[in-house]
């Protein structure tokens, strides 16, 4: 079993829809939770970063962390065609290895 599970999609939604992207994880040591966006043939770029539990909002994006369920989410409001990309969750523990553990990514397509 992978440490981080993420539905690969593709997820296709109409413009303006609310998008929900999710990851589950098994390692309770993870404390840092990130979402990266990756456009085709580009490197990932950081969208949201949360430490420990709770919610964080940035414009149209909201990240949620539920450590009791080992479940993290990214919500995109008023989705735009420019949001079409692959979204990767990435997690890291407080101690030990400093590299990120990534989900496999969810491909999102927002139809105009």
């Amino acid at each position, binding site marked *: 079993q992978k440490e981080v599970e993420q539905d690969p999609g593709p997820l296709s939604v109409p413009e303006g829809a609310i998008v929900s992207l999710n990851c589950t994880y098994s390692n309770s040591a993870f404390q840092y939770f990130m979402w990266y966006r990756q456009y085709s043939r580009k*490197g990932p770029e*950081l969208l949201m970063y949360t430490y420990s539990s709770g919610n964080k909002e940035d414009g149209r994006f909201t990240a949620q962390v539920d450590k009791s369920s080992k479940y993290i989410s990214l919500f995109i409001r008023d989705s735009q065609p420019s949001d079409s990309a692959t979204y990767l969750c990435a997690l890291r523990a407080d101690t030990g*290895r400093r590299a*990120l553990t990534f989900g*496999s990514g969810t491909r999102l397509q927002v139809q105009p």
Partner: protein
Amino acid sequence: GAGVSQSPSNKVTEKGKDVELRCDPISGHTALYWYRQSLGQGLEFLIYFQGNSAPDKSGLPSDRFSAERTGGSVSTLTIQRTQQEDSAVYLCASSLSVYQETQYFGPGTRLLVL
């Protein structure tokens, strides 16, 4: 300022040949990471460097893979005797230090082993 750069952007090689992939991190970033992204897969950690400390090589898949970082800046990932399963996108990232969570990624090198 300039972001993370990688070269070459694409590399096609024959099975059994050695390849070198280069990464130029953001100036002033002391931590440098290498990841591999295979088709349909998430990013798989390979190795990271933090300043002058010994690198964490725990993600390297075999002894055919090695990396070095000269002068605390540029890094080279070397794959010896390439195999077809080495075909992937190799991504480099840097951060201010390993204690900073924000990693900035380069565009990657697409490696195809025939």
